[in-house]
């Protein structure tokens, strides 16, 4: 600060606020807030959108105090590996503390987006009661609530625009929750109930959407039969995003033509999903809208290759495609020929645990897509075989990848032709894709791949590693390189204490580190916790045998380790299987 001269006073606060409103990213606003006390004060009063990547990184009350004018908040809870059952169910991530603090300090809150958190019905009732102008509720991968909680939201949020429930575990105890939307309620723009398992009263739904002229997104759940879809679509021809319910019924020509014309009547459809139990019978009913589609999610449909090809080759403007591996290489070759605007591809395994019938989805499909789709930048690909040569080709074809997640389903699978590790292939990816932000590794990998990643992956923010590496050097390469790394998650790798202790400072520059089934000892965790007061070092030990953790010796192996930076100190809601070391 220039001595004495308060240059920030050159303009009134409102002018600076207006200037700050042009800063798009939180990181930029954070930087501005550090310039001087005046800017800190002005910026904090004018920030209205807050993102909390780890709900335990800061005390809710502190966040609410610092930014009093927030209208939109997004908060994330459990570590990503909770999606795959690696995190104990009682680990934490409860939303109450946040919702209570927000109810107290942000009565004007309009938007709340929670991911991987435990949200109780009490939380939902608090939200429904306390935020008078509440508009957007988005719950992704959450649990702990029921349709009774949804009834409270429906009854009280008079201005609700979005109810977006994505892949949540919802208990079904209130069949008629949707009837709680008052007759005067007409403001819905987005209704996504795809994750609800119970029956939906379709007549109530019809009346609800019939009075919401701004409805753009409607994603139904599996219980809505195909026959009722026709009636629903007639009420919302302005729909842009549709998630069907069950997409199967015995063949009746009348139903087919009604469905076909109802779908064709939705002239603005850009996105389709749902398709539970879809078979070849009714799929052609959507052909008329294929040309306009930018997003297609067929990942719940066990459609076979030929049907998929017939459908997808009509979707010339597709930007996002999610599909099962039943599409096989031939199907992906057809996609590569037809969908030249494709940006994101996800191929999910139809049979992850067996090898029931060998599916012909191999590295060839991935190579074909990389060659045919010049705008491709995001891939999630589950397969059973891979070669370095294929990965080298993909790297050369697609230097613009921002997200590359490859899952070769059998751990330690080498290049099936050369029997070599896949180091060369993944190294090519990170060396070619200079904007890569997210990477998931699989297959047989040595420390060499980590050397390449540490050296080349300068934009990498999230790295997922499983069954890879030879020893400590692998982890050391990552932690001493990857200057933008925010999240690192590792399972079943021979990484031990040394790289953690040697790179302790790095951990404070990251949001979090997860390590499970590695070679870390309790002693190293204790040392790390002592050395780094701004980290919470959580040791998770689910197999309760022998002494409690405080009395275990330093060489006791740690099953699961979760380390994250925080200004809130140790949390107070740890279950019995979690110890926070100090």
């Amino acid at each position: 600060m220039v001595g004495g001269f308060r240059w920030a006073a050159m303009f009134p606060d409102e002018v600076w606020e207006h200037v700050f409103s042009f800063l798009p990213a939180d990181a930029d606003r954070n930087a501005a807030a550090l310039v001087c006390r005046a800017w800190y004060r002005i910026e904090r009063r004018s920030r209205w959108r807050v993102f909390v990547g780890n709900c335990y990184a800061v005390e809710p009350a502190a966040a609410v105090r610092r930014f009093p004018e927030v209208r939109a908040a997004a908060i994330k809870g459990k570590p990503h590996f909770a999606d795959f059952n690696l995190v104990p169910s009682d680990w934490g991530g409860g939303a109450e503390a946040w919702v209570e603090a927000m109810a107290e300090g942000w009565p004007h809150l309009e938007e709340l987006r929670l991911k991987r958190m435990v949200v109780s019905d009490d939380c939902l009732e608090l939200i429904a009661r306390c935020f008078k102008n509440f508009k957007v509720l988005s719950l992704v991968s959450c649990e702990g609530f029921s349709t009774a909680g949804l009834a409270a939201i429906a009854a009280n949020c008079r201005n609700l625009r979005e109810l977006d429930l994505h892949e949540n575990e919802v208990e079904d105890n209130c069949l008629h929750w949707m009837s709680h939307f008052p007759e005067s309620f007409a403001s819905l723009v987005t209704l996504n109930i795809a994750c609800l398992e119970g029956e939906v009263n379709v007549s109530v739904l019809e009346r609800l959407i019939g009075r919401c002229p701004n409805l753009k997104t409607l994603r139904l759940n599996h219980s809505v039969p195909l026959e009722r879809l026709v009636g629903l679509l007639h009420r919302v021809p302005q729909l842009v995003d549709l998630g069907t319910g069950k997409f199967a019924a015995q063949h009746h020509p009348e139903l087919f033509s009604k469905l076909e014309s109802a779908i064709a009547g939705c002239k603005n459809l850009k996105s389709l999903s749902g398709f539970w139990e879809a078979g070849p019978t009714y799929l052609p009913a959507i052909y008329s809208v294929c040309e306009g589609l930018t997003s297609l999610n067929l990942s719940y449909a066990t459609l076979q290759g030929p049907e998929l090809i017939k459908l997808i080759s009509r979707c010339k403007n597709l930007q996002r495609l999610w599909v099962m591996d039943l599409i096989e290489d031939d199907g992906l070759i057809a996609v590569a020929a037809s969908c030249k605007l494709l940006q994101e591809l996800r191929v999910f395994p139809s049979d992850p645990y067996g090898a029931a019938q060998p599916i012909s989805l191999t590295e060839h499909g991935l190579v074909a897509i990389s060659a045919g789709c010049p705008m491709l930048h995001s891939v999630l690909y589950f397969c059973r075989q891979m070669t370095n040569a294929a990965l080298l080709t993909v790297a050369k074809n697609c230097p613009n990848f921002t997200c590359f997640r490859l899952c070769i389903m059998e751990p330690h699978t080498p290049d099936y032709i050369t029997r070599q590790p896949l180091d060369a292939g993944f190294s090519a990816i990170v060396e070619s894709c200079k904007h890569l932000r997210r990477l998931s590794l699989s297959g047989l990998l040595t420390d060499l791949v980590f050397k390449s990643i540490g050296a080349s992956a300068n934009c990498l923010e999230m790295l997922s590693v499983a069954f890879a590496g030879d020893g400590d050097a692998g982890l050391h390469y990552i932690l001493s390189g990857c200057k933008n790394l925010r999240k690192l998650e590792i399972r079943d790798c021979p990484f031990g204490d040394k790289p953690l202790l040697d790179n302790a400072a790095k951990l404070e520059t990251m949001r979090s580190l997860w390590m499970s089934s590695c070679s870390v000892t309790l002693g190293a965790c204790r040392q790390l916790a002592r050395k780094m007061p701004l980290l919470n070092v959580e040791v998770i030990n689910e197999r309760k045998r022998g002494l409690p953790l405080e009395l275990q010796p330093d060489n006791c192996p740690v099953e699961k380790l979760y380390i994250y930076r925080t200004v809130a100190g140790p949390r107070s809601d740890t279950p019995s299987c979690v110890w926070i070391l100090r």
Partner: protein
Amino acid sequence: MELELGLALPGSDRTPELGVHGEKRASLCRKRGVDEMLAKATLPLFIQKDNDEDGDDDSRQSKHLQELNFSGSRVLVGWPPVKMWRRKSDDCGRRRANCVKVNMEGVAIGRKVDLCLHDSYQALFLTLGQMFPKKQHDGEESDAAYYKVTYEDEDGDWMLVGDVPWELSVLKHQHKKAK
């Protein structure tokens, strides 16, 4: 067949590969190994021993063996990384067809009907009416009501379809006949 001798942990692949730095690397052979491993009493000793050593390869392998041993099955927790929610949806998303064979008297080739796609007898009869040719009777087409649909029950008796409530009858996966 070539005879190869090698040093490796029990249950692991008989042909150990050389790793990048020349060290022995035995890859796990899941499909063959599990029964052998669970039967061998010496296995726990190997695990103890490996924990004392610093060998990185060995500790990795012993962890896998531990997973296989403690869980008793060969499925790793959380692998492949498919979301729990997606797995659940797949289970109910898969069509559980409840198909029955239907033959019509005088028609050589039968049809199959998926009872799961029907919610009532009316719906079933409508479908059957569409599947089978209408019989000509004095020059006019007769209706579907002319037909009797019967099924063979567990005692081998031919019974008329329609007496038992639909929900209960769907549970019986029987051969139907249209006369």
